């Protein structure tokens, strides 16, 4: 809904209200306005669930688990930290976190982008996949916990800080870009670690620019936008378990 050229904006304060009531109020507000600001958020789950394109949630406070699950083109921006499993199976759209995110962010996501300013928890980007034109992106500005990109089947993960252990375990598609080279002894035989090339820089550069636009001011410094100097982690084979199931 556009009035006078500007998207209509609404504000909702959630306090400690139960997630069912809270989500009812948020959905009602989103039906009347394209941009909804949520204040005083405390642990409410499923905020921004399946949000459509053209809609935006601005969240102040700490939302509960499964924020922006099944996101379908909308945008969710959090001015603080988020808890676990954001962007579960998201389809399209964008999540921006001005802080850190918890475990299992971007679980099985198949489209859209997640930008996290600081660290992320464990099992982030596990089972991400890509299909035709959809190529999901998880961008982590800080360090990552263990099992980043576990069982990854497609898409892109960018990590500016340190990776944890069990990086890309069972990965059979997609790519993980690392600014800091991991200990080669920690990389499993089914993965290939190599220097990123110019084609990779072309993928990375717009993502670095996007990260700067979102966070450079609050970080007080910009990251290098050239997209150069990264390491690339890829599966050695697209079917690492083929011999287990078929000859």
């Amino acid at each position, binding site marked *: 809904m556009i009035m006078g050229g500007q998207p209509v904006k609404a504000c909702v304060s959630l306090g*400690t209200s*139960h*997630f069912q009531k809270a989500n009812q109020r948020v959905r009602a507000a989103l039906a009347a306005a394209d941009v909804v600001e949520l204040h005083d*958020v*405390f*642990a409410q*789950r499923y905020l921004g669930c399946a949000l459509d394109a053209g809609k935006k949630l601005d969240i102040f*406070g*700490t*939302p*509960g*688990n499964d924020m922006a699950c099944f996101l379908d083109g909308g945008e969710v921006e959090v001015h603080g*930290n988020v*808890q*676990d499993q954001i962007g579960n199976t998201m389809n399209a759209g964008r999540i921006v976190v001005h802080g*850190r995110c*918890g*475990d299992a962010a971007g679980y099985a996501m198949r489209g859209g982008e997640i930008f996290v300013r600081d660290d992320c*928890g*464990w099992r982030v980007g596990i089972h991400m996949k890509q299909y035709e034109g959809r190529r999901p992106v998880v961008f982590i500005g800080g360090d990552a*916990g*263990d*099992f980043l990109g576990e069982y990854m089947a497609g898409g892109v993960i960018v990590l500016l800080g340190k990776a944890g*252990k069990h990086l890309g375990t069972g990965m059979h598609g997609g790519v993980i870009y690392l600014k800091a080279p991991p200990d080669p*002894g920690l990389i499993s035989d089914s993965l290939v670690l190599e220097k990123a090339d110019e084609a990779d820089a072309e993928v990375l550069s717009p993502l670095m620019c996007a990260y700067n636009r979102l966070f450079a001011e609050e970080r007080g410094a910009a990251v290098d936008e050239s997209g150069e100097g990264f390491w690339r982690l890829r599966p050695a084979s697209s079917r690492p378990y083929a011999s287990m199931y078929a000859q």
Partner: protein
Amino acid sequence: MPKTAIREGDVRIPSGCAIAGIMDRSGVRHDGGDILRSIELMHDRSNGLGGGFAAYGIYPEYRELYAFHVMYETHEARVATEAYLDVYFMSEKQERIPTEPVPSIKNPPDVWRYFVAPHPMRMNMSGLDESEYVMRHVFHINSQIEGAFVASSGKDMGAFKGVGYPEDIGEFYRIGDYRAWAWTAHGRFPTNTPGWWGGAHPFTLLNWSVVHNGEISSYDANRRYVEQFGYDCELQTDTEVITYLFDLLCRRHGLSQELAARIMTAPSWDEIDRMPPDRAKFETDLRVTYSSALVNGPFSVILGSEEGLLAINDRLKLRALMVGEKGSMVYFASEQAAIEVVCPDAENIRPVEGGIPFVAQLDEVARRKGLAACENSPVLNPLAHEVGVQPKRREA
């Protein structure tokens, strides 16, 4: 056998419990209002089949005595338990624990507390030290007296627990009236075992209390191990082995709580292979010596003791647990929002990482430990005949 209730293995619900902890490292005591609000925010992580609190520092006027919190299903159970306590302990005071009627709490047991000291002569005759003596009698009451259950048995601490949502259990026990330097809380979502009053968290023994979110896949291996040392596992839940493992490793074997936690979440053999030789040797020795104390499965745990709180996540970090600080205060909760709801300006908010314990000690305990040198405190007191210079004279 007719089936009357859903039992272990019949259902599996992939959900989590909620845990929380609040501690003032300076030892100043705070009422139960904050822990109640913190656990209440995570209402949907539990399902009304168990809630409870542990509180440290609530009975300063009886701090030398063991405070037994005992639940009774019947009057006969109380008569039998009091007769038993009368034989083996000397009771300074006994009273019904004040409770408040709460509509959602159905058929609560009769809950009493006793401030007791071991009967000196009987303890001497038993040949046991004080802690062991108390522990054996707690196990006796729990296993032998029908309808009686010791909810806690430590000094200057107590557990308040039952079947219900934690905020209702807290209201039932009027925990707002108690003042403690450390609180822990639990909201239960039982997955593998039935919900009953004794099976609510925290699980306690002596000064230990454990609140736990998750499940222990290694339960049977751990249970067989601790049972060899006289710990009865009869509470129909996996969490109790964690309490007994800490008691075994810390009280009996003299290890620090931090080392005990590391033994329970030992590094994988792959990781040990990558360590420098000295460290690898140490970790290998620990894993070999305490292979049956390795705890597997998804869990986040807050341990309470007279030293403070210790939080630990399983080594694969399959559960969430956050920690935040403000001045002398330390806050733990399954979700960050449950910390901010009681301390909006908490600092250093971060997750407790997998397999890396977070230790919050009382300042006084930390100072004492800082001064202590391991050379001056042998782990086990040697027996008299090992260090005595003269053979013991045989009585004529």
